[in-house]
């Protein structure tokens, strides 16, 4: 809530400030209706902080879950209402004194993020798989693992539910990130989405050392990359004299000022964006963080952060750097090829399911970049569809990971999954569907999304990249099929893990994942049309 208001206050042009400084300060004009999804989510997050402080312990969990779900659903309804009204069409799309753009891609991405966050919150709220007052999260994250203090807190029934407000703050940042129309808003949104995620990574109840290590690695590398992002913004500001995306684009077309500033600015901003998107060579944090973080948080990060990061990447690249296509395309070719190869080849050697899914997410970041390379509306449409389809499949896959358990918690070593299909054919079948979708087998959403981005990239003249992309898909498919064979055609170990029966929450999340993956594979056209209608940035 505060972010949007304060940011827009900052974007008042300097001239009007000095002219009006004598008697009164003009209030910035905020379009509350069009920005309502942001306000709903941030408002719910602030309320969540108050609930954490004041609600009685027994009621806290239920209140927090209810509030979070309500906030996400409310924001989604707001997105649908805004999208079906005419308030955002044409020149009126640029709102909040030019700080935020609410156009087709923004609304599509915001809707996607809210849907995915809703499914991820169902996983976060699961308490039957890991019985206790806080489910899969540490009852009191500040206690030292294994210490008397922790035991005492557990005995006293301490239950902190800060997971939910933190998730909402992160979702709010994600909604703002692809909508940012100037680079300062983009930076603030990047931090608003990142800071809660750093904390969420460190909140696991089991294997807390791994979880805390993941949080530290993610934090240090994330802060490092956002410093690069910020320096890039400084250089672009130095080049164009403005941080507004359209004015940077104008300055770049007129080729005024020094190319050194412009190109190094573009490079540094790209570093920050590619880091968040998890693309090589800035992918090194992904496997560690995905493995160490609580699985529900991993699902949330893997799906929603990717959507937000690629949304912002698309807007900044298409709107601000659109005129520099010939400069950045060779760079992106290299990044896309490297990302796909690193993700696909290294996933072959993984022995841990969460790490394997992390490398698969790197490969998928590469596939999405192939769509970005097209640099036209068809590429944009493909990317929007891809992010939605991949998000549901990846949340579903992590939902399965939370259910396969042994007495020590989740059994994530791949060898433990041998024969899973014989013990619980349904759950293993669902996982197989997600893997087939990742591999891009027809009749799953993965095939349609790969087809959409690859064909757009072919038309856009990036055929060598598409050839590599297809090869990388084949390599990755080999690995996914190996996991399926392992699950269905090998004998289960006697002391192997079992599939725990979850509550309705995880069941619904899993069912949604399977349904969307299959429906988008069989009848993708309505969603493709929706993405196609949305696919034009307002400049």
């Amino acid at each position, binding site marked *: 809530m505060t972010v949007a208001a304060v940011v827009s206050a900052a974007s008042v042009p300097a001239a009007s400030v000095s002219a009006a400084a004598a008697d009164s300060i003009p209030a910035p004009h905020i379009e509350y209706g069009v920005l309502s999804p942001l306000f709903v989510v941030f408002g719910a997050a602030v309320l969540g902080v108050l609930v954490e402080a004041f609600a009685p312990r027994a009621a806290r969990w239920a209140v927090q879950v209810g509030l979070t779900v309500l906030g996400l659903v409310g924001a989604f309804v707001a997105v649908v209402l805004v999208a079906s009204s005419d308030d955002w069409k044409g020149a009126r799309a640029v709102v909040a004194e030019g700080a935020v753009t609410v156009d087709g891609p923004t609304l599509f991405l915001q809707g996607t993020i809210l849907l995915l966050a809703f499914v991820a919150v169902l996983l976060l709220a699961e308490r039957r798989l890991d019985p206790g007052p806080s489910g899969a999260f540490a009852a009191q994250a500040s206690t030292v693992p294994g210490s008397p203090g922790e035991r005492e807190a557990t005995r006293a029934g301490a239950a902190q539910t800060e997971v939910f407000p933190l998730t909402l703050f992160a979702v709010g940042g994600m909604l703002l990130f692809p909508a940012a129309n100037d680079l*300062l808003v983009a930076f603030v949104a990047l931090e608003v989405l990142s800071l809660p995620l750093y*904390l969420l990574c460190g909140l696991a109840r089991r294997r807390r050392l791994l979880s805390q290590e993941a949080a530290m690695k993610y934090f240090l590398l994330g802060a*490092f990359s956002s410093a690069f992002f910020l320096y890039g913004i400084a250089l672009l500001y130095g080049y164009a004299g403005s941080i507004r995306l359209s004015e940077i684009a104008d300055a770049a077309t007129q080729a005024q000022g020094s190319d050194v500033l412009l190109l190094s600015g573009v490079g540094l901003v790209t570093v920050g964006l590619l880091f968040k998107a998890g693309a090589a060579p800035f992918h090194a944090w992904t496997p560690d963080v995905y493995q160490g973080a609580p699985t529900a948080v991993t699902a949330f990060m893997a799906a929603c952060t990717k959507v937000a990061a690629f949304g912002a990447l698309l807007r900044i690249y298409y709107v601000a750097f659109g005129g520099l296509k010939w400069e950045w395309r060779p760079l992106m070719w290299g990044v896309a090829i490297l990302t796909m190869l690193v993700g696909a080849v290294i996933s072959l050697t993984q022995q841990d399911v969460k790490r394997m899914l992390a490398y698969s997410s790197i490969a998928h970041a590469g596939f999405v970049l192939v769509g970005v390379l097209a640099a036209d509306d068809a590429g944009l449409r493909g990317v929007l569809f891809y992010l939605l389809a991949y998000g549901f499949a990846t949340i579903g896959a992590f939902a399965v990971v939370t259910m396969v358990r042994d007495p020590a918690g989740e059994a994530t070593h791949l060898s433990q999954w041998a024969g899973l299909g014989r013990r619980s054919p349904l759950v293993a079948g669902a996982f197989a569907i997600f893997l087939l979708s990742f591999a891009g087998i027809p009749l799953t959403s993965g095939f349609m999304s790969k087809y959409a981005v690859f064909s757009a990239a072919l038309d856009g003249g990036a055929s060598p990249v598409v050839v590599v992309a297809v090869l990388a898909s084949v390599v990755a498919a080999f690995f996914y099929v190996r996991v399926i064979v392992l699950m269905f055609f090998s004998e289960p170990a006697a002391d192997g893990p079992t599939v725990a029966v979850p509550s309705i929450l995880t069941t619904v999340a899993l069912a949604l994942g399977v349904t969307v993956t299959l429906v988008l594979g069989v009848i993708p056209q309505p969603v493709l049309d929706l993405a196609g209608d949305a696919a034009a940035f307002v400049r």
Partner: protein
Amino acid sequence: MGVQNYLYLSAILFTIGAAGVLLRRNAIVVFMCVELMLNATNLAFVTFARIHGNLDGQIIAFFVMVVAAAEVVVGLAIIVTIFRTRRSTSVDDANLLKY
């Protein structure tokens, strides 16, 4: 003195910060180097604001300070938690997650 000298200084500070992140082993020092990078950026913003004669850069510098303060809160919380568990803040000791 030319105003661009401040830009050179900012680039040097940023580079020192980046080198520190890569070379130092103590998580607190690594984090301080990140803060140095952010402050170098602030210097660049303010200098560019002077060059262009508008206020945007100066206002951005305030935003960066607030964001950096928020980052300190979150970062120190994480580092202190790790320290209380491991009795060490060396980034080399955090090596359970690999390959």
